[in-house]
């Protein structure tokens, strides 16, 4: 028996949301990217249903351009916790002619993921997709609901969102609709990092400072790799870097860092003045980039 247990209000809210998902939907799935936010979701789901197993599978949409460290981490985690993992590949969507690979300087498979995701939702008849998005990430996300209803084309209608009152979540949907669920909506980047530290949660090694071959473009640090387009004049150098978000290599920039432990990473985040999405190349395209992607069914 322990001393008086003071609940962490944000953690308690997330657990409440995850239990609502399990109770209100028939085929929920957790969208797992191997990034810190989805890893945090897995820990919260463990807590929500303990001592039972997490009552839904994980779905990873693999762009084929993921960091190998992330994939290894994913497989280890699934094995350790006895989870069910479903992987669907963007490459398959390309091979089926459903999407076309982008070309040139800013080529990325990031936006192509949407098609693969929507196909997977259709294939498995998922009615709720749990994601790790947070409202503090980006302005368009600030208005996202916890239960966000998507029509049968996966689209988000931001003008017609259901109001969410008190703790009451309304997950009733029509045939063909599905709900995107965001249990850590109210967490900030710092909350996530502090939680990972307090809970001592394992995360992929690329979140810590390491030596990497990189090149500089538009003030951002890009991974030098066969998947990332590089101009001949863009010189490759070796730097101590780490990643603040872990997405597709083609859209995830590194930051210079010496932080090799959770303690120093959290310290760095606390002092940091560059927002997390500032290191996401996909959002720099235009100020309204995220909102446009969300409308067509992006995560």
């Amino acid at each position: 028996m322990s001393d008086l247990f003071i609940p962490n209000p944000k953690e308690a809210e997330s657990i409440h949301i995850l239990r609502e998902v399990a109770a209100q939907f028939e085929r929920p799935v957790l969208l797992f990217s191997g990034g810190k936010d989805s890893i945090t979701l897995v820990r919260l789901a463990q807590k929500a249903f303990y001592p039972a197993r997490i009552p839904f599978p994980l779905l990873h949409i693999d762009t084929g351009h993921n960091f190998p460290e992330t994939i290894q981490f994913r497989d280890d985690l699934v094995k350790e916790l006895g989870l069910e993992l479903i992987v669907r590949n963007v490459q398959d969507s390309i091979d089926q002619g459903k999407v076309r690979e982008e070309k040139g300087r800013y080529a990325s498979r990031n936006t192509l993921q949407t098609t693969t995701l929507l196909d997977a939702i259709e294939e498995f008849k998922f009615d709720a997709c749990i994601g790790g998005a947070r409202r503090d990430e980006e302005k368009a996300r600030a208005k996202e609901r916890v239960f966000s209803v998507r029509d049968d084309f996966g689209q988000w209608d931001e003008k017609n969102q259901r109001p969410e009152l008190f703790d009451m979540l309304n997950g009733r949907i029509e045939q063909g609709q599905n709900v995107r669920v965001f249990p850590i909506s109210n967490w900030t980047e710092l909350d996530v990092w502090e939680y990972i530290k307090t809970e001592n949660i394992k995360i992929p090694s690329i979140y810590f400072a390491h030596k990497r071959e990189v090149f500089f473009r538009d003030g951002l640090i890009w991974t030098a790799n066969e998947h990332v387009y590089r101009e001949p004049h863009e010189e490759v150098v070796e730097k101590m870097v780490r990643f603040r978000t872990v997405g597709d290599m083609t859209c995830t920039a590194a930051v210079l860092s010496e932080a090799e432990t959770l303690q120093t990473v959290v310290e760095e985040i606390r002092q940091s003045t560059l927002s997390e999405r500032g290191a996401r190349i996909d959002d720099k395209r235009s100020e309204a980039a995220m909102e446009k992607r969300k409308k067509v069914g992006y995560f």
Partner: protein
Amino acid sequence: MENRKLIKIATAGSVDDGKSTLIGRLLYDTGSLTTDKLEAIEKTSRQRGFDYLDFSLATDGLVAEREQGITIDVAHIYFNTDKTNFIVADTPGHVEYTRNMVTGASTSQVAIILIDARKGVIEQTYRHFFISNLLRLSHVVVAINKMDLVGYDEDVFLKIKADFDALVEKSNFNNEQITFIPISALKGENIAKKSTQMPWYLGNTLLDHLEVLEPEDLQEQAFARLPVQYVIRPKTDAFHDFRGFSGKLYGGSFRVGDQVTILPSFTQSKIKSIQFFDQELEVAVPGASITITLEDEVDISRGDMIVKSSELPNSEKSITATICQVNHKPLRIGEKYTLQHGVNRVLARVESIQSKIQPDFSGEETTDSLKLNDIGKVSFKLSKAIHFDPYQVNRSNGSFILIDEGTYDTVSVGFIV
């Protein structure tokens, strides 16, 4: 994460009261605006030809709003100081304000009502205060903004304070603590830094005032209610007979050994264990998402409620509630809805609409329907009894939503009287 206290704030202001600027200023002064966001604000401010930083750009979210230059929905904004995490539900001050402010206030403990010092208390102010009253927010901050445009004049501040106090007289909820703070969001006066322009004001800055609020001050003191969200049955060798009842605890505490009653069956049992993940707790406090096990094998499913046997709630099949309509489809007599009370759902039929209440303390009128943003007193007949407390003694166990049977949209929110 570090267990900082969490303060949830709803903001209300009319168009051009400078609410977005205030929030942008709070972000800026607490160092929560990152370099890239600040750069974006500088760039856009320049493009629009402003000679100051337009902090409102930090919060105005969607493309449609950026084009119109106004906010249209509830946006959530986060910032923190060393001791406190803040969540601001920013709700707009124009046409759909009632629905949006009710929504934002439902998850908040504190209301900030913004008043333009040049305009004073206006009709909108009445409405904002009415809603914070209806929702029973225990702390209200009246932030009198744009003091720089009235020469930081104390008389202006006192006149507005007196007008607002007259408004408070009309309210029927007198437990709230109301604090008046003269500010300039644009210039940063009395936001995080004490204003040197207004030496006559001796109170706290806005940020200091918010920071001294303790969770205990904001926590409602009521009876313990555990609505069962989910029954945990692991069916593994190690936990073969485990049956845990999961939910978020509201209002009061549970202790191992407590004699409890399960509703609706009115079965009695005792709490055998309280668990949070792999920890066994002696006591669970309000706000905790826990799992409990009971001494006896009791048939319990989602939607049931576990309470202490000495603290039974009301169990009724007919209820009356103050309703706020939050959808374009009007509420009408005879209409059937799904009523969601916490995590429990029953069918509800509108028996009568007793009155439509003017959201500005000016009185009531008769009506046969409630349209979007209308507030009224409505009686319902339910398919099964619900187990509730009046909203004024327990916010979470005294509120419900109505779900439309055709569209499944959330169309109303109710506060049980």
